[in-house]
């Protein structure tokens, strides 16, 4: 099906099967590879994007279900919370292999946008869906707190 997909403020015309997941449309048809494939069943969070500002797992979202909504990926996310997250991620050198980190940052950004001062329990609840096999979790937690502080200050 022919679709006008809104991604990071641009409109892309793509012609793909209706059941093709947003993840693969972004990666293969739009050419944005920052959003990763980890499981394909909404268990790992590597494919996390924002749809109308809310975090979503792109691997299980058929392109036909996206409609006219705004998709934001790691390449385009630029809200104050997103910039604070990216900055904190770099200051704390959160990344190891880095493969999960686009999804981690998208989930963390969405968390700060809805809850500017999250507690550890809030972080657990918001970030539980994002696996990191390199176990960078203590730094993810630290970087979210640091980003929250920087937004406050």
């Amino acid at each position, binding site marked *: 099906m022919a679709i006008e997909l809104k991604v990071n403020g641009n409109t892309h015309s793509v012609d*793909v*099967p209706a059941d*093709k*997941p947003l993840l*693969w449309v972004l*990666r*293969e*048809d739009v*050419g*944005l*590879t*920052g*959003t*990763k*494939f*980890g*499981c*394909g*069943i909404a*268990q*790992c969070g*590597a494919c996390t994007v924002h749809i109308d500002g809310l975090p979503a797992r792109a691997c299980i979202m058929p392109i036909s279900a996206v409609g006219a909504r705004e998709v934001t*990926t*790691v*390449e385009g996310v630029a809200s104050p919370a997103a910039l604070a997250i*990216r900055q904190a*991620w*770099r200051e704390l*050198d*959160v*990344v*190891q*292999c*880095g*493969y*999960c*980190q*686009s999804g981690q*940052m998208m989930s963390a950004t969405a968390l700060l946008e809805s809850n500017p001062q999250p507690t550890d329990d809030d*972080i*657990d609840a918001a*970030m*539980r869906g*994002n*696996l*990191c*096999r*390199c*176990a*960078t*979790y*203590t*730094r*993810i*937690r630290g970087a979210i707190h640091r980003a929250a502080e920087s937004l406050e200050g």
Partner: protein
Amino acid sequence: MLGKITPHHLPRPAMDRRRFIQVIGLSGAGFMVGCGRQNDEAAPAASGGAETVPVTAEPVVASEFGPFVRIGTDNRVTVMIKHLDKGQGVTTGLPTIVAEELDADWAQMDFEFAPADASRYNNLFFGPYQGTGGSTSIANSWTQLREAAAAARAMLIEAAAARWQVPAGEIAVSRGRLSHGDRSASFGELAAAAADIAPPAEPVLKDPADFTLIGTRLPRLDSPGKTDGSEIFTIDVTRPGMLTAVVAHPPKFGAAVAGFDAAAALDVPGVTDVVQIARGVAVVADSFWAAKKGRDALTVTWDESGAVDYDSEQLYREFAERLATDPGLVARSDGDVGAALEAADQVIRREYRVPFLAHATMEPMDCVVELSGDGCEIWTGAQLQTVDQYTAAAITGLAPEQVTINTCFAGGSFGRRATPDSDYIAEAVMIAKAIDGRAPVKLIWTREDDMRAGFYRPMSAHVLEAALDADGKPVAWRHQTAVQSILAGTPFEGMVQDGIDGASVEGSRGLPYSIPNVEVRVNTIELGVPVLWWRSVGHTQNGFVTEAFIDELAALGGQDPYTLRRELLADHPRHLAVLDLAAEKAGWGEDPGPGRGRGIAVHESFGSFVAEVVDVSVAEDGAFSVDRVVCAVDCGIAINPDVIKAQMEGGIGYALSAALREEVTLASGAVAEGNFDSYRPLRIDEMPAIEVHIVASGEAPTGVGEPGTPPLAPALVAALADATGKWVYRMPIGDQLRGETG
């Protein structure tokens, strides 16, 4: 199956090598310096004298030249990384060594992955192979990079001395600038002139006391690209006209394709080819989604006559039977364990079981291959480049030099991407060949493929026996292991000595405790399940059982487990230092409080020493959480303390994940787990607080990717026993404490 790559297909170790320094001028754009190991008989350039250094402004045609450092007229310093970076941070650690010895500014440092070329970029610990593993990257590069950088620095100084007409000895170098009096110049300004300077035969290395970058926190060079979505992993590589492939693998190990019906798969829009390869049936399409749907529609009939049909439980019973009836091979024998056990008042015997584990890297296995008439170009997170290169050459009929490998950042490995048969890379090459090289092919394994198509940490069973004397001190120790060999049947079979695979007994044969009678035996089991090194290899299981057992012996002998270890490690100062540091920082000896437990363990692996103290809280019903891990590490000179800390945190989290509930279960020869809903790694809410303390050391640096992993499981089991009185003998811990303490 893929024709086995036998050792004689692979390069042979060169004899009698010695160091030499060589320089390549970059046509006025700077220069590169490397120090190689040169084979005497193939060393025409060195024929004028043992330490003659060939210098040329033209690219050198030298098969054993390894340029590691490029200094450009743009003032960038680029370090060629001969290793895979799978998160362990070599793209930061190796440039740190170069920047230090050069006195460069950290902001001018870059890195580039080296091509696959074992003649220049072999791992000095792997003989003629280029590759990464065993936490060797820093250790084998340490002197090599220091010498290359020191030579480059000397050449820059000479160039400045000539330009300014001053003695070289009066020139200072600091943060990427050379200076004399009020004159100064950047590396870039001197790079072209320095390219014509003869490098020193014996570069003078810095006194470690003068290090200014090593030992400080430097930001990771790979952080920017990994935090804005721009880093290109294998799965992100795109080539013009590229097709994507997925493979239907045999449902059981040892099964083979009997036949297939491609019609329904070929009906899926986008599917271009369905081809049989030695490892299954590949569906090739213009996108991943089409290929996957094509595979869903594909019908394959499998010949299971040669397949295994094990169940994990049955295997454990067979392992136990084997341990009971077959004494196995002796890997170590001190004193007379038999007599000591016979004579002892108190003999303790325990059996341990540890399961198959998946590496479950976040990026599933993947590889891009592009064939041309006389070449094969590969993009992947290659970890054993030389093996991969020779394997691709064998499949395509090309010469190894015609196989180019572009090493990409890997989304994790933990050992998985270092496969002796290049499994998934071979698969991608076979598919590209099967479609006649018509288009570049990207092979993507789904998560389920990654879980079920192989390579696992081997399952093992252990019997430990010990005798305690009247004071509760162990006087005899016997450890017998039943485990599959990782190396048997691979190009690395030569590392199996006297029938014993070193990987089966690492961490058990080297038991450091001073016990007069020690015997370590191994029964090698042949199973046909594909097994592989998994973060810390044999140390994962052997570190667990030896440390858990010594802890239980302490408890049974009425000793404090920390004190007993101290006594038995009196001759091992580096073990003692980490043990003491972890104990002190964790407040060992203080009561952790009601419902809580504390455990300790220490283990050496890959030349690094790590002790961990684990605190747990256990509820009435046996549910528990891991609250804190205090870790002390001695890895020699700490190149980048923050990277070391990150690797300890990661190694601890990885080990904890496995200890809590990871297990690959065989059911009738097939892997029961498929995706992250059934194989469930650690999540953020289960991650303990972690403190890492680094022992100050002047020893040569050793690895940190793996050594943080082994002590976690035994310290955790000891902590749970401290809280509940119950010992766990089988991994993962799972629900074993549930309902037994409440």
